[in-house]
């Protein structure tokens, strides 16, 4: 049968084309249909299409559809793209898209079906659906995983997108910020979140602005180092945080958001800052014995790092309160404190506040100072106004205790920072108070000890007696290096018709030296009742010293004045200098140091002190005195004395005291004592007598 033009065209169609007669029998089957179904044209023609390509389950519907069309002239399948399953010759099914056109020719209906194998498309669609589903699953999973990881972190994590919107906060962050839900977080602006704090400060105490936050720096394309901040929240709670941020990039590498982790480092920071603070407190307390000054320094150290206000009060011997220090970093606020102090009674109410702490020795803490407390404490309206203007928020009064004794109290107050004092603040304050108490006690003991030593030493420098025919004058300059007292001494006493004069130097310092000096003097005086020879007196003293525990060493010179002669014995002491018309000369003989050596012996020298001559005895503080790069020395002392030949004993002392003062370039490192004994030339005139009596008192000069 010759093919029509239409059939020849359809033979070349890419898609399958099949024509059927009104009974559904195949009348045309193009090559594409052959490939699609695996059925050659010859096998297809003349057979019902239903048997060829329609799966059995659809065949009844197919035949019913043809019958309905023939009866009604219309059908739901015609002239539309319909997707359906088709059957290959091998029995496998595959998806096709089909369009059926009905034509009436020569009174009979014929149908032509255009068929497309849509297996690939179907597969692609299914693949896409599968991918979408997998993707959905993946996103669901990763969200869950993200939430599982970040949500369970104890550290607050927040995400801020590139439009500066807050998009995510984990539960820890919500709790940190005091927010109920993620919705509250998302609806807040970053400014509102930051503004919810009373204060945000850097490690150096400076206020921190939004633009310094690492997350914001990253959004601005700046490098972002971790940032340490201290926050005070609206409840007055202090927190130290380390902020770390990282960029979140999209697939194209563009910055999408920043994620910021807030690590709570409050404990570490507090511990570190407090140990530094305590170390500095200890250093300050140890720096000086002036405890009132050191307490003021401690108060200064505490503000503003530890508290906003710090005050120190001490109890004096009578149990009265002595305000010592009040510190605040702002001088203007201190003015306010001065005004407030005027309202404070000298004796604080023993049943509240400072008075209660001083009485009981127990600390008091006011975590929150409410207005009612101020109203209660206020004396009058002005006082209340002042109290309110300070803006007191939280406070503590901590006793400075030593055993059962309360020496004073530290008062700590937070105002403008709004920070509530907590148990760790109290603990810190107690540590400071304990250290301060020890420092106060040490300093008081030390000054007490120094005072005792000084008094003792002074008591050992007795008023010199009047010796007929002689003028005796003295100089005593205590050492000022430290407040320790050295061991120089002198004494003069009558023994029958004779007089004994001694000068010496007990080695050692302070109370021990003073006690030893007392022993030496009393030994000399007591022994002189039985033994009158200067050499024997020194020997007895030597024995007494050797019986003392430890090394008790002493230099001494002993001079005995009798009517006709002067006897001298020297134990380890510089020889006295005699001022005569011929000049200045050392007299006597060196003898061993007292209390030092076995088998020691002392000799005596008999001197002649002519009328008008002066014998100057001195301790080594004179010749050892340090001037500018050199010692005063014996030669210089001799030269000074040479100019004093015609002078009274007290004038000699004056000249020497002035010369030493001019020479010395620093404080007196050692005690300095000088005795000048002048044999009077004639009966003293009235004028000289007055001068004599003035010189009998020891001239106490404090060196510069």
């Amino acid at each position, binding site marked *: 049968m010759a093919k029509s033009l239409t059939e020849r065209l359809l033979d070349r169609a890419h898609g399958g084309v099949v024509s059927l007669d009104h009974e559904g029998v195949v009348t045309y089957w193009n090559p594409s249909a052959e490939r699609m179904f695996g059925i050659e044209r010859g096998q297809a023609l003349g057979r019902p299409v239903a048997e060829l390509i329609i799966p059995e389950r659809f065949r009844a519907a197919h035949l019913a559809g043809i019958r309905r069309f023939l009866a009604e002239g219309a059908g739901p399948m015609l002239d539309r793209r319909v997707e359906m399953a088709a059957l290959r010759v091998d029995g496998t099914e595959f998806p096709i898209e089909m369009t059926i056109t009905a034509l009436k020719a020569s009174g009979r209906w014929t149908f032509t079906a255009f068929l497309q194998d849509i297996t690939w498309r179907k597969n692609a669609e299914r693949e896409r659906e599968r991918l979408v589903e997998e993707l959905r699953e993946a996103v669901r999973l990763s969200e869950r995983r993200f939430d599982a990881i970040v949500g369970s972190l104890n550290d607050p994590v927040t995400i801020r997108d590139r439009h500066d919107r807050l998009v995510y906060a984990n539960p820890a962050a919500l709790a940190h910020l005091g927010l109920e839900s993620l919705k509250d977080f998302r609806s807040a602006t970053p400014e509102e979140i930051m503004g919810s704090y009373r204060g945000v400060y850097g490690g150096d105490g400076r206020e921190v602005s939004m633009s310094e936050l690492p997350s914001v720096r990253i959004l601005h394309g700046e490098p972002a180092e971790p940032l340490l901040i201290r926050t005070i929240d609206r409840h007055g709670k202090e927190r130290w945080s380390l902020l770390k941020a990282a960029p979140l990039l999209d697939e194209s590498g563009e910055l999408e958001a920043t994620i910021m982790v807030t690590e709570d480092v409050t404990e570490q920071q507090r511990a570190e800052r407090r140990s530094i603070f305590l170390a500095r407190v200890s250093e300050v307390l140890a720096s000086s014995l002036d405890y009132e000054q050191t307490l003021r320094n401690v108060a200064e150290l505490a503000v503003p790092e530890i508290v906003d206000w710090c005050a120190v009060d001490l109890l004096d011997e009578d149990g009265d309160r002595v305000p010592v220090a009040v510190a605040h970093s702002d001088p203007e606020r201190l003015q306010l404190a001065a005004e407030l102090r005027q309202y404070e009674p000298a004796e604080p109410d023993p049943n509240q506040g400072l008075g209660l702490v001083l009485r009981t020795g127990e600390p008091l803490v006011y975590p929150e100072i409410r207005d009612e407390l101020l109203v209660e404490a206020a004396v009058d309206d002005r006082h209340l106004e002042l109290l309110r203007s300070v803006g007191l928020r939280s406070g503590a009064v901590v006793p400075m205790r030593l055993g059962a004794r309360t020496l004073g109290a530290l008062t700590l107050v937070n105002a403008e920072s709004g920070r509530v004092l907590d148990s760790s603040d109290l603990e810190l304050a107690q540590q400071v108070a304990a250290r301060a108490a020890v420092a106060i006690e040490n300093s008081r003991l030390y000054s007490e000890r120094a005072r005792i030593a000084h008094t003792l030493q002074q008591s050992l420098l007795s008023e010199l007696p009047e010796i007929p025919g002689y003028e005796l004058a003295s100089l005593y300059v205590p050492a000022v*290096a430290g407040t320790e007292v050295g061991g120089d001494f002198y004494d003069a006493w009558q023994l029958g018709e004779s007089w004994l004069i001694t000068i010496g*130097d007990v*080695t*050692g310092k302070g109370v021990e030296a003073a006690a030893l000096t007392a022993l030496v003097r009393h030994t000399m005086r007591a022994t002189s009742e039985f033994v009158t020879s200067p050499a024997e007196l020194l020997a007895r003293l030597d024995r007494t010293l050797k019986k003392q525990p430890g*090394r008790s*060493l002493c*230099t001494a010179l002993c001079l005995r004045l009798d009517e006709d002669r002067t006897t001298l014995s020297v134990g*380890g*002491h*510089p*020889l006295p200098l005699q001022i005569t018309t011929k000049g200045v000369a050392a007299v006597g003989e*060196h*003898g*061993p*140091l007292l209390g*030092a*050596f*076995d088998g*020691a012996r002392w000799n005596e020298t008999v001197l002649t002190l002519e009328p008008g001559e002066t014998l100057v005895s001195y301790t*080594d503080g004179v010749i*050892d005195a*340090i001037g*500018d*790069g*050199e*010692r005063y*020395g*014996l030669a210089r002392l001799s030269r000074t004395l040479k100019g004093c030949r015609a002078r009274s004993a007290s004038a000699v002392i004056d000249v020497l005291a002035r010369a030493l003062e001019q020479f010395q*370039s*620093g*404080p007196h*490192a*050692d005690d300095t004592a000088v005795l000048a004994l002048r044999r009077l030339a004639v009966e003293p005139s009235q004028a000289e007598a007055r001068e004599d009596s003035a010189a009998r008192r020891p001239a106490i000069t404090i060196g510069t």
Partner: protein
Amino acid sequence: MVRPSKFEINQRSTGSTLNVSVTGELDLQTVHVLSEHLEESVGREITRLTLDLRELAFMDSSGLRFLIELNDRARQHGWQLRLISPRHEAAALVLRVTGADAALPFQPDSDR
């Protein structure tokens, strides 16, 4: 205050013998330096200590007291102390005045 001279301690040890030489001024201000130095150096292994004071420029009564106490310790603990006399008068004076030059174990200076 300008110190008349610098205080210095040098030491050399051979076996159980420690040689310490001191220059400068041995007085109230410096004596604790020497004292602490020897406290660290003289341990159980040292049985002989030679303290060379030849170059000492000055010594006061506190320096002398230190030497006396050092001698006490040597006797108590059974180690040997040798002292070499200062050449300078300002250092020798206190030893002579107090009789310490004869009573303490000063050795004749072998180098002289």
